[in-house]
């Protein structure tokens, strides 16, 4: 006897919860060969707004943790990803139509990258910060601090690796993230949200929207409560317009990147979403 198929309808990940899209819309995710895989929620601008509210509320808690603790939490995500390796590989094989070997490489690279960024959490400040020489009996210290809420358009041609490469560096410094997943390949992003929900990451630190980046991105770019915009996966959108509307509220913007090396691991992606704070402190003159 054949089993009755159980088609899944996934939801969004906002504020540590899994709500349906406010609009009630869903769209079909199809495999590389065109077969039905599952339904995903199609986020509307109001979902994006809710996600920004959740992300804003999470900033103080996440950035207030010690950097060591943040590193531990991020490393724990890599552990959970490792535990779900088989599921991610199967999903990528289905969605991208690649061989198991290629999918395995993608998942392994993504997990390694997550570990690499987790390691930076309590180290990047030593590299990006500085004790400045000044002519006077003062310490003058520059330290990087998180900018706040980062909106990310994830790479559209990669299931997991692109998403991880964009999200992980933004989290390292203590920013919170609203990410629009790949429209055609959202399955890994949805599974990642399930990983995040069962990890130690506080709700609202990562918010994952599935749907049309072309529809949602303009609202995030012009949103006054978003501090930075990572357009890494926005190459096919009218991204010049997005940059212009982001400039209205002085957001930091990263430009689109294409190809398999998009969002390659670098310290620059971490410091891109930081502000430098410089403090003066008197030296003891005893």
């Amino acid at each position, binding site marked *: 006897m054949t089993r009755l198929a159980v088609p899944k309808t996934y939801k969004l990940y906002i504020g540590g919860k899994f709500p349906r899209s406010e609009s009630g819309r869903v769209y079909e995710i199809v495999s590389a060969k065109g077969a039905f895989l599952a339904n995903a929620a199609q986020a509307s601008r109001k979902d994006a707004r809710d996600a920004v509210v959740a992300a804003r509320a999470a900033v103080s808690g996440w950035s207030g943790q010690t950097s060591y603790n943040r590193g531990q939490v991020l490393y724990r995500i890599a552990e959970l990803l490792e535990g779900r390796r088989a599921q991610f590989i199967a999903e990528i094989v289905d969605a991208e139509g690649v061989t198991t070997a290629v999918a395995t490489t993608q998942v392994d690279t993504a997990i390694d990258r997550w570990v690499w960024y987790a390691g930076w959490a309590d180290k990047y400040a030593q590299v990006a910060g500085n004790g400045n020489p000044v002519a006077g009996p003062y310490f003058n210290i520059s330290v990087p601090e998180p900018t706040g809420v980062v909106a990310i358009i994830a790479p559209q041609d990669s299931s997991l690796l692109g998403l991880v490469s964009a999200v992980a560096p933004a989290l390292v410094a203590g920013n919170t993230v609203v990410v629009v997943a790949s429209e055609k390949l959202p399955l890994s992003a949805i599974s990642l949200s399930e990983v995040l929900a069962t990890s130690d990451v506080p709700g609202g630190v990562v918010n994952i929207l599935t749907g049309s980046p072309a529809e949602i991105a303009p609202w995030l770019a012009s949103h*006054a409560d978003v501090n930075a915009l990572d357009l890494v996966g926005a190459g096919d959108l009218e991204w010049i317009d997005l940059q212009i509307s982001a400039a209205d509220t002085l957001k930091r913007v990263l430009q689109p990147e294409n190809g398999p090396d998009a969002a390659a691991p670098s310290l620059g992606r971490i410091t891109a979403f930081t502000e430098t704070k410089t403090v003066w402190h008197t030296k003891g003159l005893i």
Partner: protein
Amino acid sequence: MTGTQIVQREQALSVIGGEATDANLRRFLHGIPGVDAVGLEQRAAGLGTRSIKTTSKKWALDRIIELIDLTTLEGADTRGKVRSLVAKALTPDPSDLSTPRVAAVCVYGDMVPHAVEALGSAHGDPDAGGISVAAVATAFPSGRSSRSIKLEDTSDAVSAGADEIDMVIDRGAFLMGRYGDVYDEIVAVKEACRRTDGTYAHLKVILETGELNTYDNVRRASWLAILAGGDFIKTSTGKVAPAATLPVTLSMLEVVRDWHKLTGQKIGVKPAGGIRTSKDAIKYLVTVAETVGEEWLTPHLFRFGASSLLNDVLLQRQKMTTGHYSGPDYVTID
């Protein structure tokens, strides 16, 4: 007592059916039909699902601002805090001067002189474009002190220039069934609202519905407050959870509607506490319009007691004027 007040008193006594004694009040209040709690909550939930389209929403947001009693009732209040509250009441959104002003500022009695001073020439009737000063009195929020202290508290605030007095009822006495005491106290406080020129400060009677436990009690307390001469009935102090809820406000509005049918007098309603978003506030506007009619949506008949609500309304308003979402960095912290 003025002529109209004597008429009102006589009307109230005829409704009660005798003097306002415990026994007469008990007979009257317990003779009121009980509240269908399930039906009430369903009706309130139904009123909350209306879809409000853009132009109506624009109107609603401005009207909500005009109906707000901008409130600060903290132990840590200072002159400076009151001054900044007044500044916000006068110019809610400095980036958009077309934003209307709020109806009143609501402060503790000892802060009234500072509020009056900060308002200066803007102090006045909200109908005439001014901002009123409301003061909480009668040992707010608990109401646990002797009658003479409560009356002193009230007249003190009135002589300092308060236009409106928010009094709390004695919930303990109400729950014990000593309705006569509650009635007499409201009457006495009303008398303490008298200014030297013979006019009266508006009296808002806080029922503190969170402590009354049942909708039946809320309905009885509403009747009692109106019979005793309250100009407004107000849900809560904001210090007790649950504060204002839509079903409670709806049941109070129904009493106001019935009283209007009976006597032609219009009593105001003020939900206070717990209304933080524009979406919630719009539900209240819908409920008022559907229960007692749109003519109630004026500062003299309906108010929101709120502090954080204003910021959310301003954010929504900015979204409607600029076309993109705004953030808390663009409104004042308070």
